[in-house]
């Protein structure tokens, strides 16, 4: 049980937690938080895969690292869009939940 | 000579940790937010200072050391800013009016 595997299991648990939060949380902000947890869990798994690809004097495979950085920036842009939509929703309906009528 | 430095490092780091412990105990035990804030900012900054001081001989000089000191100064700046802001927020939230200047 190396520490890399440990972080892999931690990543798997985060994916499960994020998925649970995304489905169950009623408030949209909490869903966005759960999505960020889910995203960081997925990227942790990718990081463990990268770490296991260590070779040629480098601690971790550079290709997945670049992909993770790109995915982080995409996840941030997604969070910005989601938060902006949420703020507009709160302005319009005064509520933080999606079940508006219609 | 290196033995003395190592001993100094261990002593300084342990002292720093003691202050961190004191800060955490303060956080848990103190009655309201303002006193907790006091405990946190004072104890943690001092604790961090001691840990940095202790690590200085272990780190490649001059760049490693300068980075550590810069780290500590930034933490001081952060603490110095967050403290009054949180205090201001707590004061106005609790009493609903601006604190005396």
């Amino acid at each position, binding site marked *: 049980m190396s520490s890399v595997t440990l972080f892999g299991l931690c990543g798997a648990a985060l994916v499960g937690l994020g998925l649970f939060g995304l489905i169950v949380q009623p408030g949209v902000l909490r869903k966005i938080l759960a*999505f960020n947890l889910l995203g960081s869990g997925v990227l942790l798994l990718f990081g463990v895969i990268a770490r296991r690809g260590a070779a040629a004097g480098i601690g971790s495979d550079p290709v997945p690292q670049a992909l993770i950085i790109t995915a982080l920036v995409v996840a941030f842009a997604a969070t910005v869009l*989601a938060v902006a939509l949420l703020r507009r929703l709160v302005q319009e309906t005064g509520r933080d939940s*999606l079940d508006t009528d219609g | 000579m290196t033995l003395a430095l190592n001993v100094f490092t261990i002593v300084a780091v342990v002292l720093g940790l003691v202050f961190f412990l004191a800060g955490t105990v303060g956080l848990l035990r103190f009655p309201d937010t303002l006193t907790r804030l006091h405990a946190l900012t004072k104890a943690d900054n001092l604790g961090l200072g001691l840990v940095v001081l202790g690590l200085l001989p272990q780190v490649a000089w001059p760049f490693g050391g300068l980075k550590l000191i810069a780290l500590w100064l930034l933490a001081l700046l952060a603490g110095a800013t967050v403290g009054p802001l949180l205090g201001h927020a707590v004061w106005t939230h609790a009493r609903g009016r601006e604190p005396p200047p």
Partner: protein
Amino acid sequence: MDSLFTLTPPAAWGAPLLVTALMLPVAALMLAFVLGGRHAERVVLATLPIGLGVAVAIAAAVLHQGATLHYDLGGWAPPLGVSLHADGLSATLLLTTAVVLCAVGLYARADFRVPSGAREARAPLAFWTLLLAVWAGLNAVFLGQDLFNLYVALELLTFAAVPLVCLRGSPQTIAAALRYLLFALLGSVLYLLGGALFYGAYGTLDIALLSARLASGDPIAPAALAAAALMTAGLLAKTALFPLHLWLPPAHAGAPAAGSAVLSALVVKASFFLILRLWFDVMPDPLTHLAAQVLATLGAAAILFGGILALRQARLKMLIAYSTLAQIGYLFLVFPLVASPAAAPALDLVQAPGAWTGGVLQLVSHAFAKAAMFMAAGLIAGALGHDQVRGLGGLGRVLPMTVFAFALAGLSLMGLPPSGGFAAKWLLLSAAIETGQWWWTLVMLAGGLLTGGYLFRVLAPALSTRGPPLTLVKPVERSRELVVLGLALCSVVLGLVPLSSFGLVQIGRLGATGIGLP
């Protein structure tokens, strides 16, 4: 345009064509964003024909070469580099995208014109730049050969499609856009997780290399099974297949007419295209047979569920949105029919159009028909001032061309001869019978009846001659009606084209699945 067609581009032309198809919308997006104001619309209307020409050239190049076009970006070959790939299917979809976007561009000029006096307005700038971004995302998905590159393309598409939904800004559309974004992000994250596991098991993200390593005989790594399952689940969420369809109707009905047309006709197809690539280009055949049954069952459920709910909708655009749910179900019936072990003996490929051609034909004819239908609904809502199906009595007398176009599109959706939809459903039906899977025929026939049902609900009152004549709130421009009619005719004409001429669609397919296509 036909001068280009006869010009037989040598193979060396393939590379710059693929790059132009990918980068033209991106460059136009940046130019339109910087110039802003009225220039944004002009940049789009200038770029659309060029993009159409490039799509035609790519189709010609693929047809001429008879093989897939391939190009390594930056000169770096996979697995390190990213490559572009254009087979018959992607060339067809590039062409469909260009045609539908040209029609939407012409249609939307009246809705998104900068009001006189203002230098720039929110909705026009947003619409025209988002239209180019949707185009860029679609071309990147259809041309991608690397799983992570496809992930970034999917995100580009999602960030372009979500603001389209709430371009008008009413509370319902904002809630619909937020729900769409959350579903799309869940889909993207699951897709990314699948990609990560594929990389963890086989050390590459290139579809061709992955397929080779997966088929290399040794037992498939459990990570690959988990990856395929997660990726499919993610892509199903983005395609709004039956259990994961909650977000589609309010989102597609809430968007402005031009936006709904693009969303329903094209955006939903991009993630479906990736499911096709995953199960026919990456995974080995025995697994595809297994997954095919699951996907087709969900597809059948979508056909019935979407059809029944469409019958009960009060608003015209919601009815059409639920119709999209149902028609997507047809697409998923392709999997068991193409991948069935009891495939008919390998007839001559070009002459014997198989379920694959039927599926692609359904993709293309649905794109034309649904875009035409949503734009017609936009014209009707604009003219009458309301969107209720009940209030359409006698519409045919007032808006004859729009109702005629709506009926033609409906013809194609129902699958009545001579429309493209009929040819697609006929091919799927015959393939189902040839491969002995008769139960899919029942689903298709039931779906056709349901489609007929909810379209009858709209067309019967519209074409009735009794009752008081309707008063128009706003006159409808003849040019916009012609655009809608033209698109609906495209969908119908697809059925008149002799089936043997669909050789383009088969290119790059035989080698991949390795079984004689029925």
